[in-house]
């Protein structure tokens, strides 16, 4: 049992400085209660990866992470035989050929590691959309019965199902089949009220009035049609920057000077300065 209720999720995540709204609390609870993987999808920097880490930290579980990228294959995701070591063994002693497909020569990769883990484990499959479509097939298989067949060793079944979180930036649509298998959580930019609370949790030294102003200003920026809207991570950076500058008042000049922390494209900065009537630098 991972969590007793959505309320408990909220409380325990808050204890590790992750603020959950109704959607997060409910889906995190259900993923544990129904034993289904949780797919968290949304723009960059809204706390998808952090969510998995927070669940692990809050429950004292071990975190195993599979980082996806273009070209990721079974050998990197699941397991691989240590070919080099096997060949060296063959060359070295000429009798012991039959045991080169044994545990000793197996290179465990994140998925196998999570399936075999006998302690509570959170498996984070990060940025699933970056992997090739074939990897989805593999994930689908593993997330259906939580078992892996290694021809030479037999079938390994999870004794304790890991708590699985997949994340995606939606740079491409994940397959319907994979989505059907998962619970879905769309993580989006938070309301200013919630972002203020996140700021206060992440940057405790920040005065509440600045947190409020920052959150509302960022929300206003997001309403402009920018190429890249500021993420929560960038709002947090902004707060750190202001603190580092020793400023406790947020005025237009200061916003103008530090806009680069939240807006990375030059054209976005120009547009924001124009729309918000900031003094140009």
């Amino acid at each position, binding site marked *: 049992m991972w969590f007793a209720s959505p309320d408990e999720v909220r409380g325990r995540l808050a204890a590790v400085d992750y603020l959950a709204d109704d*959607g997060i609390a409910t889906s995190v609870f259900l993923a544990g209660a129904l034993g289904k993987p949780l797919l968290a999808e949304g723009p960059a920097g809204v706390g998808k990866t952090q969510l998995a880490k927070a669940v692990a930290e809050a429950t004292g579980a071990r975190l195993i992470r599979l980082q996806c990228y273009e070209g990721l294959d079974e050998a990197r995701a699941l397991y691989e035989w240590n070919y080099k070591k096997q060949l060296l063994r063959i060359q070295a002693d000429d009798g012991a050929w039959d045991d080169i497909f044994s545990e000793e020569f197996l290179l465990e990769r994140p998925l196998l590691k999570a399936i075999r883990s006998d302690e509570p484990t959170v498996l984070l499959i990060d940025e699933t959309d970056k992997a090739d479509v074939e990897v989805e097939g593999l994930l689908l298989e593993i997330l259906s019965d939580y078992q892996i067949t290694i021809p030479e060793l037999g079938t390994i079944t999870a004794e304790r199902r890991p708590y699985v979180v997949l994340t995606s930036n939606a740079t491409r649509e994940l397959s319907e089949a994979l989505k059907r298998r998962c619970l879905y959580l769309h993580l989006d930019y938070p309301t200013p009220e919630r972002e203020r609370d996140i700021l206060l949790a992440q940057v405790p030294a920040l005065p509440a009035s600045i947190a409020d102003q920052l959150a509302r200003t960022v929300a206003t920026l997001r309403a402009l049609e920018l190429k890249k809207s500021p993420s929560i991570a960038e709002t947090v950076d902004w707060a750190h920057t202001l603190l580092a500058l020793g400023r406790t008042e947020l005025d237009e000049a200061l916003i103008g000077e530090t806009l680069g922390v939240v807006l990375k494209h030059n054209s976005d900065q120009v547009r924001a300065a124009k729309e918000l*009537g900031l003094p140009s630098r």
Partner: protein
Amino acid sequence: MTTNTASLVDRHVGFVHALREAGLPVSPAEGLDAARALMVVDLAERETLREAYAATLVKRPAHRPGFDLLFDLWFPPVISGTEGTAVTEGAEPRELPELRERLAELLMGDPADPAFREFARAMVGRFGQVQAAPGRQSWFSFPVLRALSPETLVARMLTAMLDERGGLPEKVARWHIARTIEAFTEAVASDVRRRIAEESGVEKIARSAVRPPIDQVDFLRATREELARLRREVYPLARRLATRLSIRQKRGRRGRLDFRRTVRASLSTGGVPLTTHLRPPRPHRPELVVLCDASDSVSTFSHFTLLLTFALREQFTKVRAFAFVDTVDEITGLFAPGADVLDAIARLTEEADIVRFGRTDYGHVFERFAERFPDAVGPRTSLLILGDARSNYQVPALGTLKRLAGQARHAYWLNPEPRAQWDTGDSLATSYGSVVPMHECRNVAQLAAFVETLA
């Protein structure tokens, strides 16, 4: 809410059915997941119930607004005439100026505050019922909004929120007010729907109230507001399209053997080359040429495709963009990276030479394009044509298009018209489609599907 099992099952079944009717692809397995979720959550917690349904049944953000609307109808927060509503309605002040005062207070605060929705419900009860036909009352939003007139409260709220007017603080305050007014309007509309459902059944109102999800909104019929939301869909799509096109070009190129590194590595294994090292594949340079119909018959579509082009511009190393009506001009420069896209679209009509007489003429456009830009399309180019293939009965210049397509590595045509209208009137869809494969592309979903087929 009743937790009587039989009525819960009925409600669940009815709700899932309504979601399917509204276009959400809920599979039987997902329906069962939702049912299992209902058994482990506290059904009296309405927001938990909502999120439990959402987590199990709604797998695309575009489907969420329709889902929420239907959830509010199937699982209403209150039922008229029960004690709860009577109490809250009674607790509100009765005089209009006081009501407006209360509204202003709420609009300056957090719209997630339960008092916000309670007030909206009370106001619908107070002002929302009017004579729809002789002897027949019904519920509407407009009398509520007219009576309370939130827009006329803005000045007062700004004064209350700001020490002095002007500058960024005012912008931020205005944005906050705009957001809460929108939330209030939506809360009123939602309560109006609830009351209508109580009186004349939930199915009927459900069918008429749900707008198609944004990815199914017809490009040619998008409202202004939808267009703004469509714009937000553009960047992820462009990124996807770019990845797809580059994967196609990369396929089968694994990189050549790096002989020296392989040999060097083999030294540690007694000269046996256990590990082979490949040179990284040469970075691919996908090239894209976009030809985009910018005429009025497709203006919302071309607005969207220009944005798409602009977004693609940032993804491809080499993009050339051309716009046309009855002649064609290069617009790559207007869409330089870093340029402001809305500005660029505005400048396009003034600065680009794309109109002679003003009626689309594809044939002339292809001839002119081949003549003015002979080197634009080469063996590494993906050629993308965006338009409705309606050419006002002019000469099609099929031969020229065939030659252009032949020069390109791939060529695709995206047509925003429903397939059923192809070839009607002055449409040359089939003729052009026989030369360049033509895809119906009426909405974001179809565009996304097209992008996926490129894999």
